[in-house]
Each structure stands twice: as structure tokens, then as C-alpha cells.
């Protein structure tokens, strides 16, 4: 049934906390997600025209990069986005077949591929673009919060977390129970004012985003460097000019 599960106090709400302050936009989480999930619960994650000009495919995690502000106070913010496992997921209630559902025991939102008719309405109902259609299988696919890792007793206990969290080289991603006020992730959200995306729509996402920290503005003297390098390398050998170009990037 696509009715939402009954809410009870102390309910587990598994999800992610993403630290926008330290994400460097390396896309490792997206790659690790694709790698694990194309063999996981929602497998495969097909690619179309993979070596052609119009390559596209199904990914559960995508990294957008934004600029915020202008001049010295501006900063680049890398912004990973995957399913937020909302507490009010309209993607579940709009489903006409019962294929889309939210688990009562941990709040994970999943798709039962065996009964999905591929009407795509759930992807329209998701404000965040978390669901992607598998045009090969004719069914909708989405992030499973690596349900086949986090409960997988064949994995070492420290590996029982989502692939995107495991792989992150800067530790910008955290996995845990956001329904437990004493959990590490809840403490992080409280300390860093973790925020909901598009709170005005009332979907109440479980995943939280930690905003970039305020840092004192630093004078940008690095801008002088390429000019110096140019004068030193002028007229040198091809190798030196190449090294110069490399260093000037």
C-alpha cells in the first residue's frame, strides 16, 4: 500500500548528513554509488549511448556545483544530491500500484520493481529529482540508502554503510539514525544548523545539509602568480613552456 507507515515515537529514520563546508566536488560518491548499485538491490543502472555524443544513464547520486555571492566573499559550493528519504514522500502516495513505498522500520523509501508500471508520476512528485527512470526495464529506480550494505552481514561491521559515505575522501558524508536525538548525526545537525532542502514544500526530508562555515575573507594574492611565471618562462624550451602552462592552471 502506498499509504505512509504509521508514525510512532522513537522511530528510526535512517539518512545522510552532508557537509557542504568540506565537500570538494570530486564525484567519488556518485561513482561509488553507481558502481555498487549497478550490481545491487536496484540493479542494473543502465547507460545509453555510453561512448556516443549523447551519453546518459541512471545515477542515484549527482553532484551539482554552485557559486554563492560575488567578489571576495563569494564561494564555490559543491552540492551532492540523492534521495532524501522524506517523512512526507509524495512520490510514495501518488504511486497508483503500491510499487513505491516507505519502510516503517527505518524510513527508507524504495521501489518494488516487480509491480512498477513505469508511469513516472513519482518522479514528477519528487521536488528534488531523486528518481530516475530505467528506460530499458521500463521501471523507476532510486537510491536505496544502500539497503544491501547497511544490513549486510557478509560485510565487516565498519563497511555496513552506504557506498557514498564509505568512499568520501574528505568525510563530508555521514550516515546514521536521524530519529535518535542522541545519535552522532543528530548531534552534528544540531551543532551545525543542518537544514532541510525546500522546507516550504513540506516533504520533511530526513537527509540534512550542513551549510558552509563562515570564514574570514582572505586576500587573493594568487592572481599574481601566472604573470610572474610568464616572464620567467618566456622563450624557454617546449618542455619549460609546457611545465609553465601546467603550473599556471
Amino acid at each position: 500500500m502506498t499509504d505512509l507507515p504509521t508514525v510512532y515515537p522513537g522511530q528510526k529514520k535512517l539518512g545522510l548528513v552532508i557537509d557542504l563546508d568540506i565537500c570538494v566536488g570530486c564525484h567519488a560518491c556518485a561513482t561509488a554509488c553507481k558502481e555498487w548499485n549497478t550490481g545491487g538491490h536496484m540493479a542494473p543502472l543502465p547507460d545509453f549511448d555510453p561512448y556516443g555524443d549523447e551519453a546518459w544513464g541512471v545515477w542515484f547520486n549527482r553532484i551539482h556545483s554552485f557559486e554563492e555571492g560575488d567578489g571576495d566573499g563569494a564561494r564555490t559550493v559543491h552540492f551532492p544530491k540523492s534521495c532524501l528519504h522524506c517523512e512526507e514522500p509524495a512520490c510514495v502516495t501518488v504511486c497508483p500500484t503500491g510499487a513505491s513505498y516507505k519502510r516503517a522500520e527505518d524510513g527508507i523509501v524504495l521501489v518494488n520493481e516487480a509491480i512498477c508500471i513505469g508511469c513516472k508520476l513519482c518522479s514528477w512528485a519528487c521536488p528534488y529529482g531523486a528518481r530516475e527512470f530505467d528506460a530499458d526495464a521500463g521501471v523507476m529506480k532510486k537510491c536505496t540508502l544502500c539497503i544491501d550494505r547497511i544490513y549486510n552481514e557478509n560485510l565487516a561491521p565498519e563497511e555496513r554503510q552506504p557506498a557514498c559515505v564509505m568512499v568520501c575522501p574528505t568525510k563530508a558524508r555521514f550516515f546514521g539514525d536521524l530519529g535518535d536525538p542522541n545519535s552522532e548525526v543528530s548531534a552534528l545537525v544540531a551543532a551545525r544548523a543542518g537544514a532541510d532542502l525546500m522546507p516550504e514544500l513540506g516533504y520533511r526530508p530526513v537527509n540534512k545539509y550542513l551549510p558552509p562555515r563562515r570564514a574570514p575573507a582572505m586576500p587573493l594574492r594568487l592572481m599574481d602568480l601566472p604573470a610572474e611565471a610568464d616572464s620567467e618562462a618566456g622563450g624557454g624550451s617546449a618542455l619549460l613552456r609546457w611545465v609553465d602552462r601546467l603550473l599556471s592552471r
Partner: protein
Amino acid sequence: MHPALSIVFFTTASGAGFGLLLLLGLGVPLGLLPVNTMFGVAALGSAFVLAASGLASSAFHLGRPERAWRAFSQWRSSWLSREGVLSLATFAAAAVFAIGWIFFGVFSSVSGLFGIVAAVLAAGTIYCTGMIYASLKPIHQWHNRWVVPNYFALGVMTGFLLLDLILRFWVPFPLGTPILTLIAVLAAWWTKERYWRFIDTTSAPSTIASATRLGSRGRVRLLEPPHTQDNYLLQEMGYRIARKHRVRLRAIARITAFALPAILTLVALIAAGTTGILAAAMAVASAALGLIIERWLFFAEAKHTVTLYYGAEAV
């Protein structure tokens, strides 16, 4: 939103079919329409064919059409499921009504009752179609109070245009139907103008700042998208229509969906006879073209909040 032709055809055809069924289910039992058997075959047949072909067309949009029957199960939460259930119930009630009318000729109170039930269910089906769109919060151009009245008014309008045409083969000088048709066309035009004014003068509460929760340092804009080619999200929800085209298509829709059918209905009201049939037929043809453009625009002008993550600053 990407305007899929299967959905454009589905919503316009089934709207017209259920609109006509609504009018027949009410008009015949109340004694406002003739009980002629051949009129029943022509009118009910048109309504069935339109509604059923619209529903069949919607199945082409599915990734797994063979599982379409599963869509009848989640009526408790899903407007799409409710639309499916109500459309089947409408067909069932209308079938009893049609058998009573066509095969037994005499109009019994029982089949008349089923006509009224079919009319109520047809109205409910059109309401559900509108609610499928109106319930989607991420799309400001759909999640507003004008969408359901639009679907309803356009369904009734096309129902009346069809009824006015079909009726003329049995009643050469109808008076009430063309007058009501004219009113229905003008009412639908008014709701569409109000809808267009609403989407032109308001925008969604969501912005690039609320989508990212950034903005304390100043304006937020996309630096780099996650991928170089369009993905499913952009193919399905990133559709954009140029302002120039939008203005022209709206003008064409205004003329073909509303202005011409209104004028032609007026001509039919005055001329009657063969000229009346020709005018009413042209009104139906013009409205059909106009509504396909109107429905195409309903999708093409709709902006989904996911585009905020791909460079749109407001939706």
C-alpha cells in the same frame, strides 16, 4: 515538463468523452434530450470511443503497459489510481444506461438512474484527472486552484460541442443546446484566461536559494552541472518553451479552442439545418485542434523544481 503526445491526447480525448457522457447521463433522464435509439448509439458511441481511446493512449505512456491493471489498487492515496477506478465505474454505470436506452427503447426509471450515476462518476473522473496535476507541489503551474476548474470546464465544453453536433442530425432546429454550448465555451475560456494570468503573475515559493539553502553570501547560481548531457530528469522535467512561441501558441489556442467554436456555435444557433451541422462540425474540429495546443502548453509551460538544481533561479 515534457509534453508527451500520448498524455496530451489522453487528457483531451477522455475529457471530451467523459464530458459528453456527463451531459447525456443528465440530459436524457431529465427529459431534456430525445430518447431516439440511433441518437443514443451515435452519442453514447462517441463518448465511449473518446473516453476509452484516451485511456488506451495513456497506457502507451507506461514503461510496463502489461501491468496497467495494478494501477487500480491504490485509490486510498493516489489520484491516478482514483481516476482509473472511477473511469471503470463510469463505464460500468454507462453500460447499463446505454443498454436500457438502446436495446429496450422505453426509458425505465432504473436505467435513467444509472444515467445520473454515470454522469456523477464521469464528473468525478474529470475531477481526478485535474487533481493528478493539481496535487503535484513541485510544479507551481499545476499546483494551483485553477487547474481542476480548467479540466472540468474544458471537458464540459467539448462535451457540449459534440452534443450540439450529434443532436443536429435528429433535431434540425435545436435551441437550448447551442445556447448552453456557447455559455460552456465562454466559461471555459474565462477559466483558461484566469489560469494563464495566474501563472504569469505568480511564481513558486521555491527558489534556487531554498533548494540549496545557500544564499547568505549573496546570489546563488549554478557553476557546473553534474553531467554534460541531458539525463532523464532534464528530458522529462527540463522542457523549456521560448517566450516568443508561448505567446503565439496561446494566441492560436485562444482563437481555435474558444473564439472560433463560440462564433461557429452562434452561426449554428441562427442558421440551423445543414448549415448548422456544418458550423457545429467545424466548431468541434477547431476546438479539437485548439485543445491539443492548449494541453501541449499546459505541459510545456510547467516548470518543475528540479530545474532549480540545473540553473533555473525561480520556477
